[in-house]
């Protein structure tokens, strides 16, 4: 490597108090292009709040966010909307639009936000749905899809916006065990295709094999960070390893 890469996303000193409780205590992180960083940690650690603060779905009390050297002025609505278009977000409970079928779920933001023509949006949406293996399900409504299929539609919906980075908030936590694999394989394809991502998850095996860096969060802070090899091996003596081995005792996972 000739010179250090400039980070594509930089987050500094994010603080958030919700209902009198300090959820995030000055969290900072940065992400290079093509990196996959995995957030692990117990529930209530602040992972979900952190991800939602990054694209200001929850406005942070303090802290700054840069995307490619431009600081996001979240007070300027127009800038904020433009920023969010470049950051894809995947939710634990999918949040597909219940009144739209799979195709329309993917196409609606293309038409309304990106101002694409109906036909162009449709073509693009079909392509994205095919990419996540749902080319034959495009006319089905959310209620007619399985959990895994819903999450894949939501990934296609985010990808269709051609985001520079993606934030994935426990994308497999609401799924039945037999449906987790299909979603993880889509995420794996993304990672191998060079998508820049922050993933909050409890899937340790997946993390170990694909993460560039693991961030372990507890009580609103990132308390450990490093490569999976360093953090997630028995001789690391890390909090992360401790946590993961306890997770593994609870349920043996495949992946």
């Amino acid at each position, binding site marked *: 490597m000739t010179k250090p890469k400039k980070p594509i996303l930089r987050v500094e000193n994010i603080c958030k108090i919700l209902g009198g409780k300090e959820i995030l205590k000055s969290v900072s992180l940065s992400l290079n292009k093509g990196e996959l960083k995995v957030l692990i940690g117990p529930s209530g650690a602040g992972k979900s709040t952190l991800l939602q603060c990054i694209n200001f779905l929850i406005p942070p009390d303090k802290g700054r966010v840069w995307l490619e050297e431009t600081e996001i002025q979240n007070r300027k609505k127009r800038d904020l909307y*433009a920023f969010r278009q470049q950051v894809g977000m995947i*939710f634990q409970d999918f*949040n597909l639009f*219940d009144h739209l079928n799979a195709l329309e779920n993917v196409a*609606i933001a293309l038409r309304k*936000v990106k101002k694409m023509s109906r036909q162009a949006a449709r073509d693009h949406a079909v392509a994205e749905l095919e990419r996540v293996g749902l080319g034959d399900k495009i006319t089905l409504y959310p*209620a007619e899809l399985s959990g895994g299929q819903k999450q894949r539609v939501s990934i296609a919906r985010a990808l269709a*916006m051609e985001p520079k980075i993606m934030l994935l908030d426990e994308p497999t936590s609401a799924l039945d065990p037999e449906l987790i694999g299909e979603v993880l394989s889509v995420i794996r394809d993304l990672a191998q295709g060079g998508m820049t991502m922050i993933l909050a998850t409890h899937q340790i095996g997946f993390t170990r094999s694909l993460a560039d860096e693991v961030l372990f969060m507890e009580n609103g802070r990132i308390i450990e960070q490093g490569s999976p090899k360093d953090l997630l091996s028995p001789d690391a003596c890390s909090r992360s390893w401790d946590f993961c081995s306890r997770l593994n005792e609870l349920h043996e996972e495949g992946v």
Partner: protein
Amino acid sequence: MDTIFFTDQLIPALNRGLVMSIKLIIPSGLIGLMLGIVIGTLRTFGHSAVRKAANGYATLFRGTPLVVQLFLLYFGLPNLGIYLDAYTAAVVGFILCSGAYHSEYIRGSLLSIKKGQFLAAQSMGFSTFKTMCSIIVPQAVRRALPGCGNEIIYLIKYSSLAYIITCIELTGEGKMIATRTFRYTEVFMVIGFYYLVLVTMASFVLQKLEVRLKIPGFGKA
């Protein structure tokens, strides 16, 4: 029974009245629904002052008889130097009243929409306004449809009140003939039949609409 009374007097008069009734119902129904959607949205998402005002409006118009509202508009406003003709007063009264009732259904259905729907739209860069238009309102309208449909049916029936403020529609035309001929039973039976047909047709159309707009797994609020 002399059929001539029906064919020569009653039916032509009632048909004339029916046209007037429809002229009252259609604009009131459409604008009333739009007003209801706006007010219902403000009542749910407006800032505190706006919300209070919209709530106050809805409570006021839902808490008082439509007749009182019509009298205020037609007989009361001239006290302030505002003169509305009977038709305008009736339409304005119907719009304001049905808007208040619609807003109640819209509000209920908006409150039933999960927060995740907002989050997902916002995360893709939808502005608040666009989120409302493309995601929230289309869902809310579907959930509010049974209630709002009922309200349209009510409007059809309550359009008969226009005659009290001298806007002569179906009921008014019939009442004049009944008073002149003393044939109350026949006349009001026939008028009742006209309304029954209108209401039954409207229910049928609304049911069709509900089926058409139905989305799998997307039930009533």
